């Protein structure tokens, strides 16, 4: 009798563990998609483009991109993450990847990785 109860308990525990493993895999998948490098590239490219659109000459805007740097490919240089050229912002965290978005404000913009700050990029809007 006691042996039978023990069997039922073991079966239930195994059943629950298998379900938990299944749910964990699903949750990991959702989080990997939500915080992936591709999503962050798009988010920061559009955020920088909109910031430049709304900016005025001689503004300096500091953007915290610490979460993006964490998802960066090993060996990828932080100075190469944000490139602004010909009214197009490109954010690239991976060798094979990157996201570009254009802005309409006719300004000359420089982007500099803020080595002294904490994971920030400085967007300098020139005249």
């Amino acid at each position, binding site marked *: 009798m006691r042996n039978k109860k023990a069997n*039922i308990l073991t*079966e*239930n525990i*195994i*059943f629950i563990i*298998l379900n938990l493993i*299944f749910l964990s895999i*699903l949750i990991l*998948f*959702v989080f990997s*998609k*939500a915080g*992936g490098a591709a*999503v962050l590239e*798009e*988010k920061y490219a*559009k955020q920088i483009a*909109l910031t430049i*659109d*709304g900016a005025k000459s001689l503004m300096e805007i500091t953007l915290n991109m610490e979460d993006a740097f964490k998802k960066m490919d090993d060996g990828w240089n932080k100075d190469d993450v944000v490139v602004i050229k010909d*009214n*197009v912002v490109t954010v690239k965290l991976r060798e094979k990847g990157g*996201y*570009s*978005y*254009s802005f*309409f*404000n*006719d*300004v000359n913009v420089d982007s500099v990785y803020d080595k002294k700050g904490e994971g920030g990029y400085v967007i300098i809007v020139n005249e």
Partner: protein
Amino acid sequence: MNNLYPKGHTLAGHENLQAGEKVMRNKKGEKYLSVYWFAILAIVAVGIVAMVLVFYGKPYDVREIEANVMINKIADCLSDSEGNLRVEINNENVLQECGFVLSDDFYFEVGEIKQGNSNLKDSCGKGESVVCVDKNLYLLDVGEIKILSVVREHENK
């Protein structure tokens, strides 16, 4: 736990097994390896994966914000420090005066001034291909003028 599956249904049709150890083993098996249970897990997994892919597959839509930023810049540009219309701005010099570089994905219209891809205006109110925002600007000398801004998706992956 035994009530999870319909009576008589097992993974591989082992209903006719003899009593004893084989039956006990089969009962355990039908609990964990039931086709029905795996079907439910598969449906849940496929549903969640599909929802995530649909949600994150679409680009972030920032066109409305862009259109509003454009309208604000046009309003700043058209009005002087006293709140009057800058009469020297016309269709020829508006891009230079206001500091715009418009690609084919943008269009704006203020009175006689029309710049950008004019085809986009026809798509306003017809689906989600463009976002159209119009706002009124009040100027002291000429009164109210309408500014229309249209933006199309212009991502370059």
